[in-house]
C-alpha cells in the first residue's frame, strides 16, 4: 500500500471513531459540539501514562478513554440540565475550556506540544476503528439503542413508559465521550505527538457535520458520512484550490435536497424489499 493511501485510510479511521462519538449522544437527541475536548483528554491521559509510567499502549489508551468517559459523566450531570441549543453551546464551551487547559498545562508540554514515545502502526488504527464500528453495530441491536431513539423521538412518552430519560441521556453522553477519548488516545500514539491546538472547535464542528450528512436515523450514517467527507476531498484534489469550495457547494445543495442525511431507515427498507423480490 502506498504511503499516501495509508495516510488517507488512517485519517478515515480516526474520522469514523470521532463520528460515532458524536453519533451516540445525537441518537438520544443531544448535539455535542465539544467532542474535541474529550479527544484531548484521551490523548493526553494515555500519552502521559505511556511516557511517564511506561504503561503499555494497549492499557493506556483504554484507560484514557475511560477517563474521558468519566469526565463526560461528571460534567454531563450538570450540563445535561440544559436542552437544545443551550446544551449544544454548553458542550461547545466545554470543548474550548478543556483544550485551553491542556494548552496551559506545562507538565504535558503546554503550547509546545507533547511527544509520545510509543507508536501504534496503521493496522492497529484500522483494527481499532473496525472494532468501534462492530461495537456500535452490536449496541444498535440492544434495548439501550431503542431507549435512546425513544428519548430522541419523544422524551415525554419515553418517560411515561418507564425509560429513565435523564439516565439515558447521561449514559449516551458519557459513552460518546469515552469513544472520543479512545480515538484521541489512538491519535496520540499513531502520530507520536499531541498538541492542544489540534483539538479545536472546528474538529468538533466538522465531526458533527459528517454525522448529520451521513444521517442519524441508522447506525450506518456516521460511517458513510465520515467516509464521504474523508475521501471525496481527496478525489477532488485534481481541482486543487477549488476543491473545498466545490465541496461546500455540494454539501449545501445536498442538504437542501435531502435534509435527513444520506443513509435513512426508508433507504434500508427499499433495499430489503428489492432483496426479497429478487
Amino acid at each position, binding site marked *: 500500500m502506498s504511503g499516501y493511501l495509508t495516510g488517507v485510510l488512517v485519517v478515515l479511521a480516526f474520522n469514523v471513531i470521532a463520528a460515532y462519538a458524536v453519533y451516540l449522544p*445525537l441518537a438520544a437527541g443531544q*448535539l455535542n459540539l465539544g467532542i474535541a475536548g474529550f479527544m484531548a483528554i484521551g490523548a493526553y491521559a494515555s500519552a502521559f501514562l505511556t511516557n511517564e509510567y511506561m504503561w503499555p499502549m494497549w492499557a493506556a489508551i483504554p484507560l484514557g478513554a475511560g477517563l474521558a468517559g468519566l469526565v463526560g459523566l461528571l460534567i454531563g450531570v*450538570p*450540563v445535561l*440540565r*440544559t*436542552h*437544545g*441549543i*443551550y446544551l*449544544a*453551546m*454548553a458542550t*461547545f*464551551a*466545554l470543548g*474550548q*475550556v478543556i*483544550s*485551553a*487547559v491542556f*494548552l*496551559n498545562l506545562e507538565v504535558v508540554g*503546554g*503550547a509546545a506540544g507533547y511527544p509520545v514515545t510509543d507508536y501504534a502502526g496503521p493496522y492497529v488504527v484500522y483494527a481499532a476503528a473496525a472494532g468501534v464500528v462492530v461495537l456500535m453495530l452490536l449496541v444498535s441491536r440492544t434495548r439501550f439503542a431503542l431507549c435512546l431513539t425513544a428519548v430522541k423521538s419523544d422524551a415525554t412518552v419515553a418517560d411515561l413508559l418507564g425509560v429513565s430519560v435523564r439516565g439515558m441521556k447521561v449514559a449516551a453522553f458519557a459513552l460518546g465521550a469515552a469513544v472520543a477519548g479512545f480515538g484521541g488516545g489512538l491519535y496520540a500514539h499513531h502520530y507520536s505527538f499531541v498538541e492542544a491546538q489540534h483539538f479545536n*472547535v*472546528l474538529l468538533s*464542528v466538522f465531526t*458533527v*457535520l459528517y454525522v*448529520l*450528512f451521513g444521517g*442519524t436515523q441508522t447506525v450506518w450514517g456516521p460511517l458513510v458520512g465520515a467516509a464521504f467527507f474523508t475521501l471525496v476531498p481527496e478525489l477532488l484534489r485534481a481541482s486543487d*484550490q*477549488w476543491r*473545498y*469550495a466545490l*465541496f*461546500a*457547494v455540494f*454539501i*449545501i*445543495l445536498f*442538504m*437542501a*435536497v435531502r*435534509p*435527513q442525511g444520506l443513509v435513512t431507515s426508508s433507504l434500508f427498507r427499499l433495499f430489503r424489499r428489492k432483496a426479497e423480490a429478487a
Partner: protein
Amino acid sequence: MLAQQIVNGLMLGAIYMLVAVAFTLAIGVLNFLNFSLPGLFMVGGMLAFGLMKAGWPFLIAAAGALAAAAFVSLLVERFAYRPMQGGDPEVPLVSSLGFLVLLENLMLIQYGSDQQAFPALLPDLNIRLGGLVIGIAQLISLALSLGLVTFLSWYLSSTAGGRRIRTVAENRETALLMGIDISRLVPQLFIASALLAALAGILFAVNYQQVSPFMGEGVGFKGVAAMIVGGMGSIWGAVLGGLVIGLAEVLSISFIGADVVNISVYGLLLLILIVRPQGLMGRAASREKL
C-alpha cells in the same frame, strides 16, 4: 493600566456586541443558529479590503461589502433555512456551516490565506484623557454600534414592523393566522442580521487594521458566547454579553497571558449555562430552541 485595558475591552466588546445581536435576531425570531454569520463578518472585512485595493474609496467599498453580505445571506435563507422547515432542528446548522466553508475558501482563492494589512483610515488620531489613549476610529465604532442597537431595540418595541417580528418570534402559526407575510419577513430578517455581522467585520478591519479569510471564526464564536451570556433573544442582553466577553478577553490577556483567553471566555460561558441558562438578562426559556 487597568483603566486603559477596560477601555480596550469595551472597544473589542462593541464588535462582539454587533455579532451577538446578529445571532440573536436569527435565534430569537427564526430559531436558527446561523453559522454562516461568521462568514458574513469575514466577507464584510475582506471585501471592503479587496474593493479598496481595487481603488474604491472607503465608504463605497464598505457599502459594496455590505450589499454582497446581504445578497449571500439571501442565498443562505434560500438554500439553508427554507428547505429545512419542519425537519430535524440540527440540519440547517450543517448547511449554514457549508456556507462558512464556501465563503472562506472563495476568499482564500481570491486573496490568499495570509493576514493582510487593512489601510489605516484615521491614522494616529487619538484622544488623550488623563493617562488614557482612546482611538477615534474605535470611539466611532462604539458609538455606531450602540446607536444601531438602540435603533433596533426601538424598532422592535415601538413600530408595526417590530411588532410583526415579535409575533413571529412568539408563535409562527399564530403570526401566519394574523395575516403576517412570513415569506417576506424572513428574508428581511436575514438581510438585517447579515448587515449587522458584515458591519462588525468592517469595523473590526478598521480598528485592528488586519483582515484574513479566517477572521470570522474566532470573533463569530465569541459572538455566540456573548449572545448566550447576555441571554438569547434579548437585544440588550447581547449588548451586555458582548461587553462582558470583550472585557474578559482583554483583561485575561493583559494580566495572565494570551493562552488563557479561551479558559476565561468559554469558562464564563459554561458557568453561566450551568448556573443561569437563560443568561444574564434573558427570561426563563418557555419553549425549546433549536
